[in-house]
């Protein structure tokens, strides 16, 4: 029996949105009808579509698949999705590796944010850009040049901004 590919990312995403919808729906009770008409209209659409999306990911229901494939343009119709599903294992493996790299990069952006928050913009930019360049298989010399250029760029902002740049919780 052929094993079905479960869209784990999609399921987690849908569950998070459902949780958000529930929180907003509970919060709505606190407000007068007049000011929640607009959000409630779109909350209902959001909830219906997220439940449908979740059902689609979990069950692969043919009807929902057809709804999901609604497109004004032929080029984006179901046939394209079907061909994607037929991708070979090698392609799947390559895509997985690509996604893993992308997630690592996104994670490094959050680390950068943490560095900025703790140590301020200028030290964080120098350290992060050096590490980023060096770990992206560039030479030490080139990494130092990149880090220097970006720190200068950061300093220009520091000079231009009336309030300066964020100094960091340690140095602020």
């Amino acid at each position, binding site marked *: 029996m052929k094993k079905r590919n479960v*869209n784990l*990312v*999609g399921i987690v*995403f*849908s569950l998070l*949105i459902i949780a*958000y*919808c529930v929180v*907003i729906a509970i919060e709505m009770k606190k*407000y*007068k009808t*007049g000011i929640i*008409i*607009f*959000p409630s209209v*779109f*909350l209902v*659409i*959001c909830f219906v*579509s*997220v439940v*449908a*999306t979740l059902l*689609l990911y979990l069950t692969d229901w043919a009807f*929902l698949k*057809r*709804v*999901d494939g*609604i*497109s*004004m*343009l032929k*080029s*984006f*119709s*179901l046939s394209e999705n079907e061909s994607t599903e037929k991708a070979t294992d090698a392609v799947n493996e390559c895509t997985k590796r690509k*996604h893993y*790299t*992308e997630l690592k*990069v*996104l994670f490094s*952006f*959050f680390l*950068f*944010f943490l560095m*900025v928050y703790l140590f301020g*913009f200028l030290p964080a*930019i120098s350290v*992060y850009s050096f590490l*980023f360049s060096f770990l992206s298989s*560039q030479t030490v010399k080139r990494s130092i040049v*990149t880090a220097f250029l*970006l720190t200068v*760029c*950061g300093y220009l*902002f520091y000079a231009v*901004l009336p*309030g300066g*740049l*964020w100094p960091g919780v340690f140095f602020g």
Partner: protein
Amino acid sequence: MDINSIISSFGLVGGYLLSTNGISLLLIGTIIGLIAGIVPGLGAMTTLALLLPFTYGWGPLDAMILLSAVCGAVTVGGSVPAILINTPGTDSNIATTIDGYPLAQQGRAIEALGTAALASLFGSVIGLVIFLPMIPVLGRVSLAFGPPEVFWLGVFTLVVLSTVTGGSFLVNLLVGSLAFVLSTHGLGPISGVPRFTFGITYLWGGIPLVPALVGIFAISEMAKLYSQQSEREEKRLEIKGSRKNAIKNILANFPLVLRTSVLGFIIGAIPGVGGTVANYLAYGQAVQFSKDRSKFGKGDVRGVIAPEVSNNAKDVGQLVPTLTLGIPGSGTMAIFLGVLTLHGLNPGPFLLRDHLDVVTMIVLALAMGFLISCFGVFWFGKYLAKFLRIENRTICLFVVVICFLASFFIRNQIIDCLVMLIFGVLGYFIDRLKGSRVLLALPIILGPIIENNLILANQISGGDISYFFGKISISIILLTFFSFLYPMLKRK
């Protein structure tokens, strides 16, 4: 709105554009746009999102000069890598690679670049020739819109963009409606009551527009760009050929130029249909109308002319729904709407009526951006190709650092950087689930305006529900149903 007021507006705005300030911004914008187009992976959306914060505090006209010039130059610049290294600079240049790269391999790179530049120039000029007489008509149409119509237009935008942007309809609908809910965080319009703030003072101001846009369009894109290996070194070719042949190519294929311009303009005017569609359809059109199809794919200049003409005409066509209805023709246009909001202008049907100067500035600066960038690629394409040596990972690093600085720049709040990252991650996962990032950005821009109109309509009507169902409203509602039901029935 009459012809005289439009002509005088063009005169005034043209004078401003030709001032030292105007020309400087125009040149800076064109150079940035060309580089962004040439470096694969940067593109118009990322560049505009990055530049957006720096225009904060400028006058709307100055901001429009810079951003329109960037917008015009990016598509033109995108043809350079498509021809020289078989990698499109932007999505709108994909079909150019089919014949552009074989031409470069045959030692006709300069001819191909020149042909692409001239084709782009003609595409944009013909697009503008179609668009300009439409302005008074569109102005009259927009005057017919009132608060209830604007509300229905918002719903229509959500549904129509969900069906035309491609990918998963359900994810698109989910993302669009989620973004509308997100746009309601903070002080409610007119009432001023804080909503869904959960006791967090930061949320009183709502979702900050600039960090959200930078995150959605730049951060998520950079994660993808990093994972793409740079293969440009191996593909580098010797750049040679004749510019004279480029002129001959265009003159010999003028009927094709005309046909694909009109096609590109029409596709651009359909909201949400991207440049890729215009590019491929124009290429297909060139093949279909050709008697000798044997050379296509092996280095036929018509295979460069058709896509390049159409993608520039498409850029002009996109102005129709964006400036008259507030429905963006593409992600780039969605950012344009963000710029308008950032400068205190309400995008939507009232823009033409209230800010004709801004509209004419967009048109003029876009035209000048096209003109200068086409000239740049035609004469200096060989030298511009040097930007292709920049590695993806270096671009990624520079863009991310500037994203952080730009997000902080607007309000001096470090939390804005975190918001940018959150939206970046959201944009990334939406992309992975085959949704459209434009649908995440647009409601954050338009949500408050649409809600304002809903509340206004409610107050004007005094509870009379029929006020919400005037002739135009019903037409929009029917169109909404049509755009949802037609593709569904068509596929049965």
